[in-house]
């Protein structure tokens, strides 16, 4: 049995992707292709299939490429493509049924999550910190202070504003489901504003038709999420930044962009007390309800787009109980961790 190194598998996967692309380009079709998610992701997907000994899954995908290849009208071109197809299929057939030993390690994830951060981020990679936080734990202030300390950009609802600009949509008809509502209180950082998650203005029928076209037939929230995902991936090529909420950690993970993910939280009671201190004119009963509601709504949003539980610490690099360190203490601790891990 031929032994395949990871490099071999990547090369093979790349060739399969290229063949799919070639067939699609020759046909000039606009109806879609087999691997429609970009080369990097397709290669990772194929390598994971090959490595787990599920060569038959890949053979099924190959069958779809061959279905398309057989419809190439030019005989010479078709013959060339089919020869290439046969060669690749032959290589797939040679794959061992079990390439990997049984391990708990998710290699792809492990690469993104290398303990020594300096190994995680290559020279050309930007330094991105994704912070998810429960409502009222002081996460916004921590994120802002951390960005300030690291002298990198900070994004929260600015992301949403940019998404709306890209979609040519008006803010009064749209709500940012990916984050909490805060206002910039100057030197005091970001503070809670009311009403968070306020109802958006009810659209007229005409407006609904316009929205159908504006959002490509997608629900408004989904279109915003997709646009936001594209925006984050573009930004990740350009600059270092701290991003709050917006499922940024999962978006970057899915797109294989190195980043550091942090979950900030605190016990429910302490979060309620903190909000009451920041907003003394608010009623405690109302705050309790609000905290629950905010967490739930963001949790639903997060689960809808990622299929994961937002408060599950297992998919973050660092999970912090902010009540144990305070806002500045948490910032210092994270900075300390970063410093140690970059050494």
């Amino acid at each position: 049995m031929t032994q395949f190194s990871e490099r071999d598998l990547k090369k093979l996967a790349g060739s399969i992707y290229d063949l799919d692309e070639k067939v699609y380009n020759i046909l000039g079709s606009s109806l879609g292709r087999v691997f429609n998610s970009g080369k990097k992701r397709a290669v990772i997907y194929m390598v994971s299939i090959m490595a787990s000994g599920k060569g038959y899954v890949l053979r099924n995908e190959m069958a779809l490429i061959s279905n398309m290849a057989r419809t190439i009208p030019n005989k010479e071109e078709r013959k060339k493509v089919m020869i290439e197809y046969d060669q690749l299929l032959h290589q797939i057939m040679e794959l061992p049924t079990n390439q990997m030993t049984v391990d708990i390690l998710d290699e792809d994830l492990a690469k993104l999550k290398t303990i020594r951060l300096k190994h995680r981020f290559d020279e050309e990679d930007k330094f991105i910190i994704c912070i998810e936080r429960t409502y009222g734990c002081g996460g916004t202030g921590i994120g802002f202070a951390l960005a300030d300390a690291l002298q990198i950009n900070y994004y929260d609802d600015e992301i949403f504003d940019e998404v709306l600009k890209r979609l040519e949509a008006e803010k009064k008809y749209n709500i940012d489901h990916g984050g909490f509502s805060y206002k910039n209180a100057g030197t005091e950082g970001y503070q809670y504003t009311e009403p968070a998650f306020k109802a958006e203005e009810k659209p007229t029928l005409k407006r609904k038709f316009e929205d159908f076209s504006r959002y490509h037939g997608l629900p408004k929230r989904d279109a915003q999420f997709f646009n936001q995902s594209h925006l984050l991936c573009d930004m990740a090529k350009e600059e270092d930044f701290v991003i709050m909420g917006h499922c940024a950690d999962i978006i970057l993970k899915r797109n294989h962009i190195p980043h550091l993910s942090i979950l900030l939280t605190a016990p429910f009671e302490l979060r309620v007390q903190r909000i009451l201190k920041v907003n003394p004119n608010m009623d405690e009963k109302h705050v309790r309800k609000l905290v629950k509601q905010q967490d739930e709504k963001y949790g639903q949003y997060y689960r809808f787009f990622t299929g994961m539980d937002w408060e599950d610490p297992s998919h973050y690099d660092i999970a912090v109980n902010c009540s144990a360190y305070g806002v500045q203490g948490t910032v210092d601790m994270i900075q300390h961790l970063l410093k140690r891990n970059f050494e």
Partner: protein
Amino acid sequence: MKKLYCLLSAFMMILANPMTALASQSGESAAETVPIWLCIPFAGLLLCIAILPLIKEEWWEKNKPYAVIFWSLLFIIPFAVMYGAGTATETVLECMINDYMTFIVLLFGLFCVAGNITLEGDLAGSPRVNIIMLVLGTLLSSVIGTTGSSMLMVRPVIKANSWRKRRSHIMVFFIFLVSNIGGCLTPIGDPPLLMGFSRGVPFFWSLHLFPVLLFNMIVILFVFYWLDRRNYRKDIAEGLMPDISKPGTTISIKGLHNLIFLVMIIAAVILSGVLPDMPMFQNAAGEVLGIPIFGEVRLTIPALIEVAMILLAAFLSFKTTSVEIRKKNHFTWGAIQEVAVLFVGIFITMQPALMILKVMGPNLGISHPFQMFWVTGALSSFLDNTPTYLVFLTTAGSMSFAQGITTTLGVIPVKMLMAISCGAVFMGANTYIGNAPNFMVKSISDENGIHMPSFFGYLFWSVRVLIPVFLLDTIVFFLF
């Protein structure tokens, strides 16, 4: 062991015994004495279609025509030995010229014309968009026929969902609704209803089926929505995204002038149902005029007109449409070739089953609408639904009912007619071979990167989704 022997003996007796009881009742023609074992080639061909793509895909791709020839000969030769070469030739020519030719020419025409129309614009396939497209396609099926609507809508649906990974279920529900159920409202929708129309069922009578259609649409689309939503979320969770970087989308249709040719094809189909009843197309004996081919087989003038009009429409469509549109549509001959080859065999080998059905149908003791619905439907799932519909329409017409719709076959109660029509139209969705567009949609999807379920896989979908819906139909519309 003894039990097994008895079972085997009984099975062999059934296989070997021509249906002489039926023959003694009503004459000596081949149709009335066909033994059940002559249906084996039909079953064999269906099994090949179902199994070989799974276990010997490459081989099947290359040798499909030979398999069709093999099973066809396996019917024709014994049939010729039993009833004479003349009867066998007549039977094969009859089904080839009067059934298969019009079937495949219509399919070809619609395939060509629809392939020359392309939807521009980057609509992103989501549960909502898919529901809208399925509703549109379903309603369009009664206006331009299930085949026309399927061919017109299949590419826009594939294109909108091209960003997704899990999309085979969308095409399965597309077959359920657009390629079958949607065709129940007018005689243009599905060929059985056109036959009903030519037998005296009023043209707009089928609109009575609207509540049944609506009920089926609501239930099936409800199931679809939740299923599609789940798959949509899984796709998103895996990081798949549609490209919506440009703000807004403008939906435009290119090759729109082909709608004229589409109308021309629909007109040809309607004429094929209307012309045979007109005196100018009949001889003194009231028979439809035609060109004699062999024995009793004739190519009727209305069929000739239909074929000529459809081929002309296809030709004009090709001549007047830019190649670029076909390229964008990934227009290839693969799907129509596959259907043309397989259905030659299906049409020939299913003849004994249809002959038996014609004889047995009236003797099945079916007298209730729900029975009509299920028997017509079950047989339409595997056989051509047009003759199946006719057999049971004739049976119902001969029951001497006093009230109902007056047809040339007799008076048929509304509920009974509804049951036969729904059975024939709806249950064509149960299998890939139940209705012509089913296989076309499968082939086009296969060619465009969608993993369509196998024959049995599709059947499993039908059992899980359609059969419960048809049971509900039975309770709501046909049982009481």
